[in-house]
């Protein structure tokens, strides 16, 4: 059964490796020049004794040079990539068997279909976890210089580091497997899984994430200028790199502190893993219960 799963999914595995390789090439090229620039600009020394306040010109030069590639373009494209990978792999897993009638062949061998599904899901899920972890590692490595200026809690950074990237892939995969069983067609299943995935993903990012834990407040004196929120400000209005400023009203700053990164990662990844488990559990139950 392991061989069967491998044989049926090896094409997808190779495609995923190709995506990973392309990402790695891009990351190495950009990451290397970013590291060089980071050293040349003496940012390391500057950051060692201040939160970037001692060398605003160097910080600005660096963020101007790399900010758009690293923070904007990359983020916009890769926002949907985990979802695409997940639905492409998951949409065909059951739907293709139903589309081509091969379920009659697959499920009439001596291996019961429950086991057939369990082995497939386990192997493909395992493969996607490895892929997600590898993508996270590549992105985290290449972003490292930029992260020293921006921290990890900003939206477009948080989405690619830690656990959430893998959890996004798994969630899209789980939705697509379930949709494939219900719709019996690969392409409609992929579309039907991607839309709710994206909706949930955006709602969690823009509505719920900032409030996973109650934000802190502090008062600052913003009169000198250079005090603001968002990814372009180093340091953030709180004066510390890595804090996520939610709002500034007068001189009261509402923010999430940088050290909540892993807590937030666990919360958000937990939500997506729970959605994955629900979708895959429903698939197993439906396939077991309904026959054909």
């Amino acid at each position, binding site marked *: 059964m392991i061989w*069967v799963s491998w044989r049926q999914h090896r094409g997808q595995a190779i495609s995923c490796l190709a995506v990973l390789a392309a990402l790695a090439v891009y990351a190495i090229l950009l990451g290397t020049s970013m590291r060089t620039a980071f050293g040349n600009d003496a940012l390391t020394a500057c950051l060692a004794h201040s939160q970037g306040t001692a060398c605003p010109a160097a910080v600005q030069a660096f963020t101007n040079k790399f900010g758009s590639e690293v923070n904007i373009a990359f983020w916009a494209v890769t926002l949907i990539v985990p979802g695409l990978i997940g639905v492409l792999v998951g949409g065909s897993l059951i739907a293709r068997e139903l589309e081509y009638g091969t379920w009659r062949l697959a499920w009439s061998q001596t291996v019961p279909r429950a086991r057939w599904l369990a082995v497939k899901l386990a192997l493909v899920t395992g493969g996607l976890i490895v892929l997600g972890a590898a993508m996270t590692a590549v992105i985290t490595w290449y972003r490292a210089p930029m992260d020293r200026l921006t921290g990890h809690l900003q939206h477009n950074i948080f989405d690619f580091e830690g656990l959430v990237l893998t959890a996004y892939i798994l969630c899209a995969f789980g939705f697509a497997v379930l949709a494939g069983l219900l719709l019996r067609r690969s392409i409609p299943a992929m579309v039907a899984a991607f839309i709710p995935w994206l909706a949930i993903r955006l709602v969690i990012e823009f509505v719920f994430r900032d409030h996973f834990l109650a934000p802190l407040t502090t008062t600052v004196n913003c009169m000198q200028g250079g005090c603001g929120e968002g990814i372009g400000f180093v340091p953030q209005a709180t004066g510390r790199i890595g804090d996520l400023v939610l709002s500034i009203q007068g001189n009261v700053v509402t923010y999430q502190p940088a050290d909540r990164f892993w807590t937030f990662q666990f919360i958000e990844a937990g939500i997506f893993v729970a959605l994955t488990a629900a979708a895959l559990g429903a698939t197993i139950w439906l396939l077991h219960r309904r*026959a054909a």
Partner: protein
Amino acid sequence: MTQNDAGDSPPALRTDQLGRRYGRVWGLRDCTLEVPAGAIVGLVGPNGAGKTTLLEMIIGLLEPTEGELSVFGETSHSPMAARLARVSYVAQDHPLYRDFSIADMFHLGRSMNPSWDQALAQARMDALDIPLKRKVKSLSGGQRAQISLTMALAKRAPLLVLDEPVSSLDPIARLEFMREVMATAAESGLTVLIASHVVSELERLCDWLIVLTSGRVQLAGPADDLIAAHPLLTVPRATPDADLPGVIIQRTDSDRHSTVLVRADPARLAAQQHPAWQADPVSFEHLVLAYLQRPSARAATDDIAQAAARPGPSTKAVSR
């Protein structure tokens, strides 16, 4: 072929009041059958009669809504793997993985069936002169059918189920395919269940017959017994139905005579025989078509119930 009522070994297939409902519609209902091991069974019925429903329940692809089913003693409560091991299945249109080679398909068979017979699979490909390296998508329809059959045979299950196995094949490929099935069945004592529209094909092959219409079993039993129990009577046209013996299955009136297919116990019929009547044996095809053309399944079932209640003709061969 004799029936194995209280036999030592379990029958190949036994169903009792088997039914399957899809939403509010019954795909199959009140299906009670007992097929002995070694029978070559033809399953006939129009589209939507419940053939595929019955086959899929036998294979284990579909669970019954009601009733009991056992295949060589494994019931629907047995572990799934034990049930699946008793049946091999050649599905309609012979589904295979298009991007697999034949060797890959056999590898799949080997890894999904503990009883897989690789030597048999390879020997059959050698005999057919199909290289194992060939991709499934490069094969002709006839060759795909042969691969499907080979995979089913190499599973080494005692019951072989074929769903419309030749409907997509040209006449030569049909002949070759069915010859292979019959040769293997004879060689290894398989029980074979063939669902088909091609009644003439079944006549040559089958020694057992099941006719399904509208989700009901209309007729089931050894073909010879069924033919013996259905004399084709030629009677004067004026003869009223009530005077005829047994249950009238089909009556065709011409100018002076009527041809009536009845279901009646041959011994009783001989005793009741009117001098002006002539009884001929019915052909297999005529018998099947007569049942397929009966107006309503419900009526047929009522007939059977009435006939069973009446002391008259036996319904021994029907649905038992």
